[in-house]
């Protein structure tokens, strides 16, 4: 299942906003058992590690780390944020 992150905004930067986005994803996106959840950042200008940390923490806690995948494409702020979170 693919989640278009641009639907949550073009500039995604704070923890409160990340928490809200994560709660919304969990409430409205219903993946099948075992299905991977792909976060697609196409069309997003900028993401901060605080926002991404809130989203990934919530999704990983709910579905497991292996099922949540970031399709960062070439967005440098997504790649840098992922590195900051998982290092």
């Amino acid at each position: 299942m693919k989640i278009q992150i641009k639907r949550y905004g073009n500039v995604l930067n704070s923890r409160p906003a990340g928490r809200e986005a994560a709660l919304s994803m969990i409430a409205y996106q219903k993946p099948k058992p075992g299905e991977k959840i792909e976060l697609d950042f196409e069309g997003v200008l900028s993401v901060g590690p605080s926002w991404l940390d809130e989203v990934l923490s919530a999704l990983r806690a709910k579905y497991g780390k292996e099922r949540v995948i970031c399709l960062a494409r070439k967005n440098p702020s997504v790649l840098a944020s992922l590195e900051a979170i998982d290092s």
Partner: protein
Amino acid sequence: MVRLIQERGGLRPVELVKELGISPQALHRHLKSLTNSGALERRGRAPATRYFIAGEPSLNAMRRWFTASGGSTQESKEFVCETRDVFSARLGRLGALSKQGLEDGELSLLISAVGEVANNCFDHNLGHWRDIPGCWLETQITGKRLWVLIADRGQGVFQSLKRALPSIPDEKTALWTAFEKKVSGRAPENRGNGLKFVRKIVDESPARGLACRSGAGLIDYGTLGPECRKYLADFNPRVSGTVTLLVWRIP
């Protein structure tokens, strides 16, 4: 005229006429000549046009707001984001800087760095503002450089961090720790990687720099960091709060 602009920051022609006691015609002749020679820079549209020293950011308005006690300043409405929602909306507007020649990749990193620094103003000062809540967010483009000014009238990094790390001895160590170690004044929440992320971004390219002051603490990162540092060097260390200056070179 140049000295006056240097001391006071950006000045409008009408203010210069009053200060210098010369005719508007003579003033505009001088302004034109100084602008053509590259000494001065014109910013803004008439009637809000102001003249600045070329290539240098002007921190005067931010400094007036930062050091003022018990009230707002004239310029604060334009630059102060009293709530996080206002800040988020203004942060989104930085996307328009692509028109100034900043590539999408650079813009993406700049916005995320600004977001991390400025969100700290709200994250660590809620309920602890000196007087006025919010953060100052201002951008200036001068001499092929984009400057971002961020400030808050909060409790400062030392006061925030010493709750989580009581052994921190002073403001300088606290500021260094905030940028170098994964620690947060919001313990036991698991956070504290925002400023490390900002430091890494700034250090990755010779076209970037940052300086941050909080009380007596003053730190800089990146190739252009020392350039930022000199503008924050003479801020009053006894004023509580935090000031950050970021610079990105525009190709």
